[in-house]
């Protein structure tokens, strides 16, 4: 996915300016930056929730030229937990995950066998099959987050955008999420995440740093130049340390 000269607007306000970013196909790109930098706005610009100018192309096709359904099948988006699953939701877990199949269904069409199969797989993958008949409003924050992840997987899109996917997940489920990430990447999916947990972001293939609505730096997460930029982005208040094959981040 290539993003060129992208401006993103929240109402009349320009929240992102002249962004040109390369998001490598089949890899994991993590977007990081201080609070209010515009990370979530970037994902919302890509999904057409916020209005944009500039161009976003996938395999040289401008996504503005795709119809709604084609776009919904190509790009799936996971909202921040506080944006989704309102308390006045009467949906069951199963029905919530089935909503991910809407881009594949026609009007008045009942879910097909394939739809049910995909929903079951998504439930199994996120360990939510045992709560499939419960209502969304009865779940804990972590359970709800896993259900919303299952809904995202059910879209079967090639590009997955996740805004704070680890929010409310306990360490074992964070570890599970990393395993799903690897599986998704092995299937050739492109994953873009917004993460506050820098040590998880450092596990991505590619880092995009945003500051005050502008691109600050982009590069491979293992490069020392990227690490230098990351430390500078957070004004020297973090320290990066190598532990085995992984980089960890400590606040100082």
């Amino acid at each position, binding site marked *: 996915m290539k993003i060129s000269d992208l401006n993103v607007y929240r109402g009349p306000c320009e929240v992102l300016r002249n962004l040109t970013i390369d998001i490598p196909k089949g890899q994991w790109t993590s977007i990081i930056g201080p609070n209010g930098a515009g990370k979530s706005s970037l994902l919302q610009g890509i999904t057409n*929730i916020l209005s944009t100018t500039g161009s976003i192309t996938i395999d040289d096709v401008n996504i503005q030229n795709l119809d709604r359904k084609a776009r919904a099948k190509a790009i799936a988006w996971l909202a921040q937990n506080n944006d989704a699953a309102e308390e006045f939701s009467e949906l069951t877990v199963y029905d919530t995950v089935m909503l991910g199949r809407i881009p594949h269904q026609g009007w008045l069409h009942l879910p097909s066998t394939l739809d049910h199969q995909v929903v079951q797989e998504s439930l199994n993958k996120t360990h939510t099959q045992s709560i499939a008949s419960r209502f969304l409003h009865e779940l804990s924050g972590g359970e709800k987050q896993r259900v919303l992840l299952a809904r995202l997987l059910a879209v079967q899109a090639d590009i997955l955008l996740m805004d704070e996917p680890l929010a409310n997940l306990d360490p074992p489920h964070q570890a599970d999420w990393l395993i799903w990430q690897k599986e998704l990447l092995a299937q050739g999916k492109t994953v873009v995440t917004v993460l506050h947990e820098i040590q998880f972001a450092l596990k991505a293939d590619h880092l995009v740093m945003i500051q005050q609505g502008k691109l600050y730096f982009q590069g491979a997460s293992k490069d020392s130049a990227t690490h230098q930029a990351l430390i500078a982005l957070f004004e020297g208040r973090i320290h990066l340390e190598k532990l085995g094959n992984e980089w960890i981040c400590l606040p100082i």
Partner: protein
Amino acid sequence: MPKHQFSQKLMALLALSLMLIALGCVFGSTGIDWPFTEVDRTILYEIRLPRSIGAYLAGALLGLAGAIAQSLFRNPLADPYLLGSASGGLLGVGIILCLSSVGEHSLVTLIGINGGAFAGALLGVLAALLLAGGYKSSLRLLLSGVVIGVIFSAANSLLTFVRPDLYQSLQSFMLGNTSLITWNANLMMGLALVICILLTLLLSPVLSVLSLGENTARTLGLPLDQLRLLLIAVLALATGFAVAQTGLIAFVGLAAPHLVRHISGGRQRVQLILSSIAGGILLLGSDLLAKTIFAPLEIPVGIVTAVLGGSYLLFLLRRGQIGIRK
């Protein structure tokens, strides 16, 4: 919810509906004895049966509109009158009454009180939509509905201030009245109910998707703004037809969806159908009580629906079945 369970609940509610319609034919200001006399037949077929069926249909329209409003605005306190249709309908009736007392106008005669209420209710919703600049934000539309309600109410107050003789007629409209429902009115409400239910079932995926938040709904490939406008149109039509025939009946649209929420099993389409049936049962049951509590004196049905619906909502609130879930 398994299909057979839904069928059982649906059958039980429909059986209750038929029983209430039958009771509506039996009870009234005078008794009916077997064998029927000519007068009994007239009372039964020209007054009680159309009234019972009409009360049921109006309640069903309000129940459906309430379920749409609560799902669309994701607010358990939303009701069909939220977008200015109540004050619009009242103003419509006020204007027609005012014009008809000034002199005979063919247009005023053609429109009539019912037509005035219907047009006023639709105009109220249209004005709220115009003020909000279309359906871009639920909050903006709800606020516009409140503003339109206040403005139209002020216009109503001005009307009754200038013409105090209209007050009693307007008050009768405000408290709801099912005694004047005709077979023609039933035909119109029946058709409106079938069309509104079919359209709502067709559009129900939008209501389910909106439960996940407006932004997520936008990423699933649905033409959200257009579909929400269509749902508003269905809501306005259902409310307009009910208001035109029965006046402003409180609480049916608000309470009916809550009455069936725990048995609908979280299925949006089931919830919509059951809310409609519950609305019919609530209004017809209230109408029966309104006719019989102080018989032969009849009290306005709106008072009974407010007491019944309000009490049940209070009961649910105390049991924690509605309100904030955390």
